[in-house]
């Protein structure tokens, strides 16, 4: 059975796309079969990280939802492009807001239709994981992807507004009975690792949410300009090994 992991944050620019792409790649390198979906239609980022030009996108997940194409026509196999030998990575872009599209099709059955499309993708590619990158905030489609997931990864920076929003998302996840895991990103460089861990643990404790881990602010990540999968281009960087640890942590959730 495919496990769906939604990566979300209340505010923009927290690193959702970076984290989604790197975790998905790390899981694949660990032999898993992973599908990645971009549901951030305001600011899609994954195709840039995966180096996919718009012309290469012939069909999208929306076409699968409409039953217009079979799942394998709406995904791009990434192994060859990224030089991944182990596991499998597939990327599925989206075209219009899935939530809105589903509403016009069948109000009240959005969740069912969407989970069926994910299950279809899961079965045809024998996926272990589907990771969904979202746009920030809480709107209809983000609620839908929260509703459809098995695990919600909430990304936050150490910032007053981010953390406030994280509390809101945690509260909503709890109401939907979805297990939520916090990843704190861009922890200031000046902070000692032990202090950062303490701080992050404190945030988790405050909102009673599981902490999956944290990533420091990294000049190397920032200067990679989101043009590649960081762990593949900078495998020896300390942040790359943190991504790998996070991937192992994700694998331990069942």
């Amino acid at each position, binding site marked *: 059975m495919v496990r769906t992991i939604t990566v979300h944050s209340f505010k923009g620019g927290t690193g959702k796309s970076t984290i989604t792409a790197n975790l998905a790649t790390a899981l694949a390198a660990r032999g898993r079969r992973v599908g990645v979906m971009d549901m951030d239609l305001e600011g899609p980022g994954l195709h840039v990280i995966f180096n996919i030009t718009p012309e290469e996108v012939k069909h999208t997940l929306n076409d699968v939802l409409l039953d217009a194409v079979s799942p394998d026509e709406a995904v791009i196999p990434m192994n060859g492009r990224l030089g991944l030998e182990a596991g499998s990575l597939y990327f599925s872009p989206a075209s219009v807001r899935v939530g809105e599209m589903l509403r016009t099709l069948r109000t009240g059955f959005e969740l069912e239709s969407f989970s069926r499309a994910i299950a279809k993708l899961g079965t045809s590619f024998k996926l272990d994981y589907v990771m969904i990158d979202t746009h920030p905030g809480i709107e209809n489609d983000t609620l839908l992807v929260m509703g459809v997931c098995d695990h919600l990864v909430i990304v936050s920076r150490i910032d007053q507004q981010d953390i406030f929003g994280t509390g809101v998302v945690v509260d909503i996840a709890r109401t939907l009975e979805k297990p939520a895991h916090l990843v704190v990103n861009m922890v200031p460089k000046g902070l000692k690792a032990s202090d950062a861990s303490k701080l992050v643990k404190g945030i988790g404790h405050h909102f009673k949410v599981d902490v999956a881990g944290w990533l420091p602010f990294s000049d190397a990540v920032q200067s990679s300009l989101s043009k590649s999968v960081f762990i593949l281009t900078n495998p020896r960087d300390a942040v790359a*090994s943190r991504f790998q640890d996070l991937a192992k942590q994700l694998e331990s959730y069942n």
Partner: protein
Amino acid sequence: MGILSRKTKTLILVLVASLFLAVGLVPVHAATQYALSLNPGRTQEQSSPGVTVTLTVTGASSGQPYSFLLLVTDPSGAKSNATRSTIAPGSAFSFQLNYPSDFSRGSIKYVGQYNVNVAQTTPSVSASVASGHLDVGLTDKSTYERTYPVSIKADAYSSNETVRIDITHASLSAPDFPAFVNADPSGNVFFSWLTTPDLPIGNYNVTITGGSTVKAVRDSQSFLLDLTGVTIRGINVAQSSLMRSQTARFSFSADYLGGGPVQSGFATLLVTQPDFTIQQVPATYNATSARFEAGYRIPLVSMNGSWTALVKANSLQDSYGNSGPDSSPSADFIVTPASLSVDLNFTRGDIVIGNVVAIYSNITTPDGSSFAAGTVSAFVSPPGRPIGNQVNLLYDSSQRKWVGSYTVSTNDPSGVWLVKVSASDPYGNSGSGSTSSIVTVVAPVSQGSTLTLWFLTAFGAIAAGLLVGLFLLRRKRTFQHHLQVDLQAVSEEASKVKNQEFFQSIKEQIEKQREGKGS
């Protein structure tokens, strides 16, 4: 009043006209259509639960009586029938019958094709408005993958009769055949044959012969046997932490899709360093341990950190052509730098000033092999000389030893000489060893310029200390945070979302989905 009534009349006229138009648009005279379906379309010899026969009629005239005669011809040519009459409740209706229970003289006791014909007797007579067929076999499926059981059922033998079952492939009997089994008291034969991973693939024929019963249609049928796949149960790494140069030993067991362990063949492991460099490592089946095993000696130049091993997709091939897996579990292990063990030899006894003394050092990596590339230095410390005189050693590949020489100088005192050898390479592998010897220096001479050297060394050490201190100071910038998050405000914000209609709808849908999964 007159005007009003004229208006009313017009209105009625318009209404009637539009009604007429609306009725005219409905296709009352569309052709009646009949669809026959049989579910399942293939079954085994057995009278129960049978097959559901559904006739669906569309384009019928509502209120009109309809009658049908359903006729089934079995593979022996025997016929059975059933009739159904109904008054069409609308333009479409359907009814279901069970074959054989709803048919006179119906049975499923022969293999082959059962043809179903539907004739209409009312309102108009038509010899065939729909037809279909049912396939009956002895086996539960017509294609199998190796390691799955072939389940056989046959009907219409005598009570407790001993029957002979033959399964052949290319005219040869399959292992364990013929088999003799007894029918149950109602004359049913049940048999299950578990296919093995090594059976030839292709067409098989199954035949059942009664001891006394001779059936009108011989119980004989063919099925296809195909290759099967494998799954990996879990990979084991003998040591969870290894030093470079040691060999990581992996083992795993594999199962066939239908069950049972894979007991032959080979596979490829993908051993991934933290930087995603992949090494393909062959694994072979070891009959003694009953597991697939592989070993990989971790090179001295490889990366430290967490490594992963998994079975490459579809790389496992057994001796019979079965292969897999689709995906594999992974195992992690830690790689650390090699700690080198250093053994050395230094002369003892009398040394004459100006003579050259050899230093031999045998340096090995954790796996016991000789360390041959790197930097190796010896520090020779006569009494009162804690830092020692550095001598660079070179690797002598013929002796597999590191060799250097020390020239005894006039100011080297007699006493206990300490000799230390340190080895390292650019990848962080390192180690050291030391030895001491009682040395008597023959012919003493006055001291000279070494004082300057001492001073310089001491100054250098102090300067280095200062630099490190400065560096530490720079890094000691502290970082403080005062984050205040009001839980009350958080829950108010969340409530705003939770009061939205869409949120409620999603929540209900999740609950419905959970109930669906639970039941």
